[in-house]
């Protein structure tokens, strides 16, 4: 090793956005490899990247100095390193001050602010290219010297611009004269010279130019990287002190992020009691409330055990903090459900944090709260999505903005963004970047494979393109800016801004920490996720309807448990609207899974996810479940871990446990493994873990195949981790929503519609599904509907009356006025106008929705009347009563009469569904007799070739199924699930992507009760919808030839049909698009 000790103290990581060209961990690894004594990372006006650096430095055993580079808005820059914890607090507050003063993402820190915060900060002044010739530098040094005296240094760095000797000499003289030590740095922006290209690309992105035009904005050379101490000593040979000073600073700065001990807020503790005492009292009180008939012994033991463990680990304040939130929600009637590692404990059940009965899932508490991990347990709480804001405001009110704040989310480059920005920087034509991007569906972090380029007609040998792809790969994962986390709150006892700088969020009245959840996690700082969940809103509304119409009162916990009829329904994949299990993939899985009890739902929720699918876990599980294969446990030790899932690891907890039991990891290591996957994806230590895990398992006698599978699954979890404890909480909501659907479909549908937007399906499908379950559906009506969907006495039981909320373009305020001012009902359009005081826009929206049915005024008549109203505002009521306007001659009889097709299409345009008819039934004569209605597909033979047609409801291209597209078609008899393989997609690209009404000829494939149509030929019939909208009527004899896109452009066929407006613009107005998921 070298005898020269050097610490690099001027380093920008990539958290100096679009400037630093290396990840913090790359810098740390390189510094370690080069033999630097310490590394100081100081990003521009920010501490956002320091935790990553801290974690990496700890992992690799390198001394890290945490600081920030301050660019003053009134001139000059310096680097500040806090010596100790109080100085760190001051630095954090100073950055907060500057950031709160500026717009989101910006900072306005002034040199004049510094004196109040300078105590305990090492200040390294950064000269410009002019060096000592810059007179302002000397003036600034005088000011710094006055406020920090012996803690001021002057940085000197080689630029290799031909003037280094003069500049460094000048700086040395200036330093000498001022009595300020000169400090050697290398002004680092990258860990290695190979990052020069990326650094230049970042410059281009930042300056919004291209590499060919950037000229001297780019770096002259590749010298701004970490260098060996010997090299630095050689460069600074005339000024050896400047090298020694780096070690002086490294010794003076003792602060480490490990000193940021988190302290729970005081508010949660009852006076006179310790947190543990408070928690114990609450837990027992809760247990007596949960078990009024007496606490079962098993529960008593569990509570005692959990309380003991919590006491040992001192986690009581954490549980109390969560409990306080939940209590607020409960007092205000906000439905909530906790999830996360500790949420499904017996204590959380007693504290009403969760409603999952622990006896149903039997999760082991210590699996989640382990002594070794030494970090707070994880509890996220979901609240009704329409009322979460109340909870957030409660947090701000209780703890104050200086003690509660939202965590950040780091927005990083993914493939698409990287392609776009690198493409622009390298001057690739928009053509080419669009082409590359358009060939990539959705997000991925894998980059673009050269083979794919050749496929889309680009030359992979092209040098620019090759460079671009390499750079895209490098840029991916780079942070681009900070955004706010969806609901992760940090609450502290002292000032939050002394923990981490706080900046403005894009949303008004929101402030955000600079650290994201992984950072907080790494430092053991409490974060409570206050999340919004649409299904909770829906369930709450359903409970309210049950109360008001059926006089029944339920809560999440008191609903009848383990009702077999509910499971029967799910086994038939009758799950539209049911939480989590309503997607196509889940629906296909349910009949194979055949859930019979609550734990089956837990598995169901967790198994149809990228993690298990990637790890090839799904099919072995199903085979074992169906009895086709014996569960086989690689060892007795693993039997305990895997028994509940029949030997197949499905949950994150199991994967961790395997690493411990089978590969000999310590629990802390196992957790590090998970974290290295999930959080700091690029730490470069993944491979170490991989080796350790696989060799460990091989040593313990497991097969390489099993070991490989386990590791792959952990990898999958890294991206999409789904722990058993989360699955259990979701499974409860699955059960509750399924129960509501099974027993009260009208209530359930009303609640779903009243909670939109949420879930997977559009209102039309929800309504249709309800109708198929025997619910009578009634259209929105000015004399019957409220804003929300309601229940009203029907022919049998309650009928579902669609609310005015379904009417497109109607504001909630107007909708509520209609109901409020209704009295004995409205007789005419004019009546509604005067009494409810609606704007003409609102009235037109109602007319378009055909909501005047009870007054026997049709859609066009109503619209004609609305259009005929004069003046913007109705006349005052008394004036209207005084003099009736002259009855006008009614010309509405002269209006063109609407065909059934026009009515249906207009219904779709306004309320996205039609109760009058289904477009497919009207169009069937035109489609010809060979089309099989979807409802009859179940009767067709498996493997037979059939043609089905329908409206395209959903297009899905799951990331896990390479290139396959699922389309859901709907006709008047039901839905048809179409699978389009890649080759067919290429052949029928436009139809698949744009078709609104298509016919698919293909082969039927049936597994259990799920039927798919494997597309062979796809024909676009969307023009028929245009014809329908244009009032064309299709006789039973099928007079109209079937236009097909494989022939001439379809619309030519329609030239004979008179059309309103531009022929093809109409459908965009009149027909809803499908819901597409990538």
């Amino acid at each position, binding site marked *: 090793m070298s005898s020269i000790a050097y610490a690099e103290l001027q380093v920008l990581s990539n958290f100096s956005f679009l400037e630093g060209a290396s990840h913090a961990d790359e810098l740390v690894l390189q510094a370690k490899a080069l033999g630097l004594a310490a590394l100081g990372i100081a990003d521009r006006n920010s501490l956002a990247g320091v935790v990553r650096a801290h974690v990496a430095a700890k992992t690799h055993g390198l001394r890290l100095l945490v600081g920030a580079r301050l660019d003053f808005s009134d001139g000059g820059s310096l680097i500040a390193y806090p010596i100790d914890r109080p100085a760190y607090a001051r630095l954090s507050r100073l950055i907060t001050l500057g950031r709160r003063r500026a717009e989101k993402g910006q900072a306005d820190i002034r040199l004049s602010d510094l004196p109040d915060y300078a105590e305990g900060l090492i200040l390294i002044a950064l000269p410009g290219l002019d060096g000592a010739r810059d007179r302002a530098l000397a003036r600034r040094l005088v000011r710094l010297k006055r406020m920090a005296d012996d803690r001021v240094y002057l940085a000197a760095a080689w630029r290799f611009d*031909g003037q280094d000797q003069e500049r460094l000499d000048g700086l040395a003289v200036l330093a000498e004269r001022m009595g300020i030590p000169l400090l050697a740095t290398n002004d680092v922006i990258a860990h290695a010279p190979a990052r020069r290209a990326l650094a230049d690309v970042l410059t281009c992105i930042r300056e919004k130019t291209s590499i060919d035009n950037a000229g001297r904005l780019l770096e002259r050379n590749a010298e701004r990287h970490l260098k060996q101490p010997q090299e630095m000593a050689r460069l600074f040979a005339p000024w050896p002190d400047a090298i020694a000073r780096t070690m002086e600073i490294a010794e003076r700065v003792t602060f480490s992020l490990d000193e940021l001990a988190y302290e729970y807020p005081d508010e949660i503790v009852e006076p006179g009691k310790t947190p543990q005492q408070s928690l114990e009292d609450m837990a027992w009180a809760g247990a007596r409330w949960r078990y009024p008939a007496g606490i079962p012994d098993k529960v008593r033991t569990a509570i005692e055990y959990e309380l003991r463990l919590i006491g040992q680990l001192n986690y009581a304040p954490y549980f109390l903090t969560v409990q306080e939130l939940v209590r607020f929600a409960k007092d205000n009637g906000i439905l909530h459900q906790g999830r996360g590692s500790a949420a499904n404990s017996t204590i959380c059940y007693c504290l009403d944090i969760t409603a999952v009965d622990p006896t149903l899932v039997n999760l082991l508490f210590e699996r989640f709260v382990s002594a070794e991990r030494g970090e707070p347990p994880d509890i996220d709480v979901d609240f009704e999505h329409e009322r979460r804001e109340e909870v957030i405001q409660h947090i701000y009110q209780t703890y104050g903005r200086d003690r509660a704040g939202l965590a950040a989310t780091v927005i990083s480059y993914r493939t698409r963004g990287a392609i776009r920005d690198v493409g622009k920087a390298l001057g690739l034509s928009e053509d080419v970047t*669009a082409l590359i991007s*358009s060939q990539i569906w959705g997000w991925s972090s894998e980059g673009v494979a050269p083979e794919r380029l050749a496929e889309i007609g680009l030359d992979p040998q092209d040098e620019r393109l090759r460079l671009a792809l390499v750079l895209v790969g490098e840029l991916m994962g780079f942070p681009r800016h900070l955004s706010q986390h969806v609901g992760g709150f940090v609450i502290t006892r002292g000032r939050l801004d002394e923990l981490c700088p706080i900046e403005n969020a894009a949303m008004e009245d929101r402030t955000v920490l600079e650290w994201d959840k992984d950072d907080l996690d790494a430092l053991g700082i409490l974060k409570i996720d206050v999340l919004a969940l649409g299904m909770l809103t829906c369930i709450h509304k359903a409970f309210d309807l049950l109360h008001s119409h059926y006089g029944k009162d339920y809560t999440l916990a008191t609903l009848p448990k383990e009702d077999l009829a509910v499971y029967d329904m799910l086994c038939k994949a009758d799950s539209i609207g049911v939480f989590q299990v309503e997607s196509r993939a889940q629906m296909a899985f349910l009949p194979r899974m055949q859930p019979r009890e609550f734990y089956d739902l837990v598995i169901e929720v967790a198994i149809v996810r990228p993690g298990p699918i990637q790890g090839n876990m799904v099919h072995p599980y199903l085979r074992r479940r169906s009895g086709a294969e014996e569960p086989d446990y690689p060892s007795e030790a693993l039997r305990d871990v895997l028994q509940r899932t029949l030997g197949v690891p499905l949950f994150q907890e199991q994967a961790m446990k395997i690493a411990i039991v089978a590969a000999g990891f310590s629990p802390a290591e196992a957790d590090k493994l998970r974290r290295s996957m999930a959080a700091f994806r690029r730490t470069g230590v993944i491979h170490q873990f991989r080796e350790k895990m696989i060799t460990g398992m091989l040593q313990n006698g497991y097969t390489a195949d099993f070991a490989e599978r386990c590791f792959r699954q952990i990898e999958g979890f890294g991206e999409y981790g789904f722990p058993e404890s989360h699955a259990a909480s979701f499974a409860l909501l699955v059960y509750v929503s399924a129960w509501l659907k099974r027993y009260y479909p009208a209530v359930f549908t009303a609640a779903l519609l009243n909670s939109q937007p949420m879930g997977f399906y559009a209102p039309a499908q929800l309504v249709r599904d309800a109708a198929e379950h025997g619910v009578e559906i009634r259209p929105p009506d000015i004399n019957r509907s409220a804003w929300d969907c309601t229940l009203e006495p029907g022919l049998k039981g309650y009928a579902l009356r669609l609310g005015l909320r379904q009417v497109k373009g109607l504001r909630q305020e107007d909708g509520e006025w209609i109901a409020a001012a209704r009295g004995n009902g409205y007789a005419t359009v004019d009546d509604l106008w005067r009494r409810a005081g609606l704007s003409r826009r609102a009235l037109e929206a109602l007319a378009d929705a055909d909501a005047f049915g009870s007054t026997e005024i049709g859609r066009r008549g109503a619209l004609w009347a609305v259009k005929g109203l004069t003046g913007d505002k109705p006349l005052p009521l008394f004036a209207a009563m005084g003099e009736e306007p002259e009855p006008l001659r009614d*010309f509405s009889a002269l209006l063109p009469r609407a065909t059934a097709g026009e009515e249906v299409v207009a219904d779709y345009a306004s309320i996205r569904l039609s109760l009058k008819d289904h477009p497919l039934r009207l169009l069937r004569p035109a489609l010809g007799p060979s089309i099989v209605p979807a409802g009859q597909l179940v009767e067709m033979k498996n493997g037979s070739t059939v043609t089905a047609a329908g409206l395209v409801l959903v297009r899905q291209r799951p990331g896990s199924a390479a290139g396959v597209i699922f389309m859901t078609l709907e006709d008047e008899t039901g839905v048809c699930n179409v699978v389009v393989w890649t080759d067919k997609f290429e052949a029928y690209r436009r139809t698949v992507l744009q078709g609104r009404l298509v016919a698919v000829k293909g082969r039927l494939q049936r597994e259990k009760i799920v039927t798919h149509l494997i597309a062979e030929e796809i024909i676009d019939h969307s023009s028929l919808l245009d014809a329908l909208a244009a*009032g064309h009527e299709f006789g039973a004899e099928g007079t109209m030839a079937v236009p097909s896109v494989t022939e001439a452009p379809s619309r030519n066929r329609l030239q004979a049909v008179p059309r309103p407006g531009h022929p093809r613009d109409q459908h965009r107005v009149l027909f809803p698009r499908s819901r597409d998921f990538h």
Partner: protein
Amino acid sequence: MRRDRPGLEADRPLALTREIAGRAVIAAVDTWADAAGAVPGMGLADARAIIPDLAHAPYSAEEDVDCLKALADWAGRYSPFIALDGPDGLALDITGCAHLFGGEAAMLADARERLAAQGFTARLAIADTPGGAAALARAGRGLPVVAPKGLRAALQDLPPAALRPDGETLSALARLGFKRIGELYPLPSAELARRFGRDLVTKLDRALGLAPDPLTILPPPKPNRVRLGFPDPVGLRDDIEAGLDRLLAHLCTRLGERGLGARRFVLTCHRADSTVARLGLGTARPSRDLEHLKRLFGQRLEEIDPGFGIDLMILAAEDTETLSAERLQTGFAGTGGSQGKPAQDSRLTALWDRIAARIGPGNLVALSALDSHLPDRCQTVRPLLAPPGLPEHRSATHGVERPPLLLGQPERLGVLEAGDDPARPPRRLRWRGQAHRLTHALGPERISPDWWRAAPGWANGARDYWRVEDEAGRRFWIFRERADRPHRPDLMGADDPGWMLAGIFA
């Protein structure tokens, strides 16, 4: 209105796009792209998802208008009364003209044929009212010529869109189910106006001839071209020059009236034997300076061979640009030096023009600065009389002094006595057989090659440039490729050419 554009492959569907909020949005499509499903208003990326081989070019509203105006000029062959009809149509008042073409139908056929020959797809119609003809042309089928009194019947089956109401009115009409103009006939105007606005009723009345609809007639075109015919052919240089002077005076006055200047002037001389002699010349800046132009033509007048005599001279100004009086004054006043730089500037450009007229504009070049760290890419040679539009480059200052003379090809230096530090310049070196003892060395300026393009001569990686001075006070710019090439491990151990001379300071 679309025409083939140069540079676009003819066999691909085409869309013209414009930027809306940073997104390329389709403004117009050709028939193929239309058939394939691209529509105006669609994002380019979306369209590409459907039509992977869609070609695209930027849309320019001005170009469209220019093209339409040019077409209006052309249409003067059918009628002197021509008006623009929206951004994409022309209205011609052909009262009393049709018989010249053999009747209305024949006139339409003729126009259709001639337009097709120019590459235009056109929709044409003749009717009693401009509105009626426009509606029929845009939405009608089959019946392009409407007999008098037949308009009401001819229009009744057309969609209301044919009247071109605004978008809001159109959608209101559609929502009420009006699909044919005829369905509006029975409704009282007052009721219609109340619901759809006065505008719709006016348009309907105009189309039907119930309300007057005057056209705004375009002024007839006046070319930037003057002609002079001779009763007898002329052949003497003096005669030609006198003729040219008259033409120039006339043309410059006309350009002045229009506030224009031209960058190119073409003199066409028609000889008595029906052959033609042409003389064209360009100017560095747009001009209408009579004296200047006279001088330029004077230099080259002998190039015109009068042959058997010239009986017609035509002088045309091309590449015209707006040239305001102020610009004329600062740029081309051309008198006295009291005005300082502008006058000098104008004398300079006048000089360029004279030189260019002699040696050809392509041979007149200048050095201009480029923005790069690489010494050999800091300047380039560009045509001096570049057409307008090319950006001026930022001037080159590199913070550190660079020599005024750069060698085209760096020259190898011999090392007579190395220094202590191999990375620093040697003590004594030899250049072109002469020894130099170095007394001073400043540097290095380390310059890395452009990684994104192949830079000739830079294949070995970064160079360290030094400013050195010898005993005699001569100063050189020398460099050495770095011995350690960390970013090009493949070149480690390759030939080290040693120290090279890059340039000489004055």
